[in-house]
């Protein structure tokens, strides 16, 4: 159990006119990788430590240590103040107020992975891997991961919150090989919960789905590059929403002048059928959390309503600069990282289209699953590659295609969405920003986008 006395000691070292906060974390986890039925690696990790911030006349200093002792806290505060006093004056200073939270939450899930034997965890990975190895599957790769962190966050404004994060995950890839290429499809199961995620036949379902989808790609050719009407499945909709739009809504990027959403609050940024939400309060989803890493209680954020930009994602400081209430979006990768504005579970809200969205497309591409991508939030330029695609001709889904990529500009594509499906599903991921990786979820319904650039051969 993390020691609240270290928080008290930290607070006693911060100058009364300054703001300071401390994050203490203890983590433990397991990773197992299985390749085609063979156990490739088994590893366990543990870490513990704290990070402190002090804010003096608008300047932040940060220091961290892996020693959970009063002496180490004292050293870190000294280092943070040394930084503050040697730094140039900030270009702008703002006063910010904190509505303090005080709450102590226990481990809220049924089965703590820290108490599960390694053989049982290995069994989960092996079962998924076996299920993926269908007759035409060339090879498989399955990764089991769990990670539990106990957090204690306190600050000089009176916040003291104690909570847990637990991220079990199973990722299964199936590879198929034909005369053209080796291709793979990845399927994952993840949540913010306990080991009960793997109850029943959950591992077999993950592996089986990866295998079934991969086999469909045998004989698939690369899509011909060009301008098409497209339908994005939940995974691709989610990644576009998160990467292309969500990052641009992070208030620190807006302040830095590197977001295409700067100066657009209250303005139209997409078509009227588009509503975008970031919600860390959805029970059990990988990107959920009860408090952010500044101790602000998590809350649902309506970012876009009927195509109009309504809010950004805020830390304490960015909220003060915009003169709005903090909305609990300050996240840190671990105790040794500073909190920055981040997403949680980001998605386009389902619409009313019950029918298939490709029915009135003459020539198009259906994008399924996410492979990789990148975005430049400053210009809004992005590219996302799907795990696989399917050609649409005269309203019918036809042959599978590989190497399908969606490219364009964030706001341009958002304005070209003309239909939003009624389905909703999430996929867990790990989001990177400024060298920090945090668990998140993306998802949404299927959406139809008119006339966008599709990359291929």
């Amino acid at each position, binding site marked *: 159990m993390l020691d609240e006395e270290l928080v008290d000691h930290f607070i006693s070292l911060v100058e009364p006119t300054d703001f300071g906060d401390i994050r203490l974390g203890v983590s433990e986890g397991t990773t197992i990788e299985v390749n085609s039925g063979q156990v490739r690696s088994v590893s366990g990790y543990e870490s513990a430590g704290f990070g402190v911030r002090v804010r003096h006349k608008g300047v932040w200093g940060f220091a961290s240590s892996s020693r959970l002792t009063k002496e180490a806290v004292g050293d870190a505060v000294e280092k943070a103040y*040394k930084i503050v006093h040697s730094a140039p004056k900030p270009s702008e200073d703002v006063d910010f107020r904190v509505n303090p939270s005080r709450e102590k939450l226990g481990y809220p899930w049924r089965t703590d992975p820290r108490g599960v034997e390694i053989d049982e965890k290995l069994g989960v990975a092996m079962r998924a891997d076996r299920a993926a190895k269908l007759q035409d599957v060339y090879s498989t790769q399955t990764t089991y991961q769990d990670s539990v962190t106990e957090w204690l966050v306190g600050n000089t404004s009176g916040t003291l919150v104690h909570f847990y994060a637990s991220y079990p995950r199973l990722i299964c890839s199936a590879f198929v090989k034909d005369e053209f290429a080796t291709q793979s499809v990845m399927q994952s199961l993840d949540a913010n919960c306990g080991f009960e995620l793997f109850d029943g036949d959950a591992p077999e379902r993950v592996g089986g789905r990866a295998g079934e989808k991969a086999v469909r790609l045998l004989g698939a050719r690369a899509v011909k590059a060009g301008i098409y009407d497209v339908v994005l499945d939940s995974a691709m909709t989610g990644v576009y929403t998160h990467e292309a739009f969500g990052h641009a809504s992070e208030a620190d990027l807006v302040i830095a002048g590197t977001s295409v959403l700067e100066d657009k609050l209250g303005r139209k940024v997409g078509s009227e059928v588009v509503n975008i939400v970031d919600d860390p309060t959805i029970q059990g989803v990988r990107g959920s959390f009860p408090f952010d890493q500044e101790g602000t209680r998590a809350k649902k954020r309506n970012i876009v309503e009927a195509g109009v930009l309504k809010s950004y994602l805020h830390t304490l400081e960015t909220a003060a600069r915009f003169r709005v209430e903090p909305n609990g979006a300050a996240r840190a990768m671990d105790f040794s990282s500073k909190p920055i504005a981040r997403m949680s579970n980001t998605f386009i809200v389902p619409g009313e289209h019950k029918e298939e969205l490709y029915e009135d497309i003459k020539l198009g591409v259906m994008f399924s699953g996410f492979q990789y991508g990148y975005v430049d939030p400053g210009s809004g330029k992005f590219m996302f590659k799907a795990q696989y695609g399917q050609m649409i001709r005269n309203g019918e889904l036809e042959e599978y295609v590989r190497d399908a990529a969606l490219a364009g500009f964030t706001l341009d594509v958002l304005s070209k969405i003309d239909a939003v499906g009624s389905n909703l599903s999430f996929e867990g991921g790990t989001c990177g920003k400024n060298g920090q990786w945090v668990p998140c979820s993306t998802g949404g319904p299927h959406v139809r986008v008119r006339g966008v650039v599709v990359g291929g051969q």
Partner: protein
Amino acid sequence: MLWLVDSDSLFKAINSFEGDAELEVCVEERTNGSIIFERGGFKYAEAKTAQAVTVRCLVSGKMATVRSNQFSENVLETLLKRAYKLAGGAGSTDCQSHFSVRSVPEGVSPYSEETAHADLGELSKRVLEAVKAVDKKQKVYSISVEADYGVRRVAAANSNGVSGEWRTTYASVSAEVVSRQGDEQASGWKVAESNNVNELEFESVLSGATELAVSMLGAKSAPTFKGQLLMDPYASCLLVDSLAEAMSGEEVFKGRSFLSGKKGSKVASELFVLREDNSMPKSPYSRGFDDELVPTSSKHLVQSGVLKTYLHSLYSAEKLGEEPTGNGFRDGADISVGTTNIVVEPGPNDVSSLLNKIEKGIYLIRTGDRPNMSTGDLSALVSMGYYVEKGEILYPVRETMVGVNVLDLLKNVLAVGSDISALGRTVTPSLLFDEVSVSGGRA
């Protein structure tokens, strides 16, 4: 600076462990300082120290790894016991037979006292001066700069009697500049690295990013055609990183690399010469041995157009029946195939002479795309680049993709530049290729 432990102490701890196992221990320590400027003003600074102990254990052909950020003699003893128990129980069966048995050299990694004793306040002043020197008269909307520096030190030993230590310093600066013209917004970024913080050229990085951001305004879609592709050094890095990844013995063994079965074969034009250099004087990536205590080496990877070798960890070397090459590097707890410095030999052509060789083509400055690793097919969005005709840059492009197979690309090298830039561990000049498909929205 006081270090937690030396390799002799690790050796003693391993030798005193009672259990029939091969053991390997690696202790890594880091100190790091970093600063962030945004909108031209100071935003944030931080100082960190961190450590990580990784223990790998082989018991009866099974292996396990444990890792902790705590270190003491007691912690090490506990980790050795945990690794032993884990390996003997649910340990991996698809692993190497042994840890390294070859002695390792010392003193390859460059170290700078200036970096080790750098001061965040001084660094902040230097960055601020560079930001002030940027010509912001027109179109420059925002400037963000990050700079960091630090010391990394590793001590490692295994139960086969191999031990070693190294330390290095690193420093980097990156700048992102956003330009604006009416409703249009574009960006440019540039980065520089060295082992010596005093040798970072802040002004050059900032002016380069600024020039790029402003030059990207007014972008248009390119026509669809087949022509030449000039990759600037940053774009070339993408290609070279992908090649190094495809040379990974583990990917080759799994049949997932487009270079599988091509060792000893001609895979590129003779103009393209690629080598690994483990001892570049100013590079923080120079190393005498890898994370498995196997000596690294400088070697040709592609010479006279021929693929000379695959890159191996102990595991992949054993699987392919080849010698380890000192390319086993740790990413978190696990070892995978990686490299020290990867270098493309420069040629005789400056950038203007390369441009003059283009009849119709794209000058690719930045892309985030990478090829399909099994086929080598590359479909890359031109995230920053220009359309070129008859040697003249006509306009920056948007919504434009280039498509080619990497193996075809390498055989169609027209010329190699004399300019050299490093992005991380990859050092390349500009490269000019022929026969590349370009897809844009214009007729």
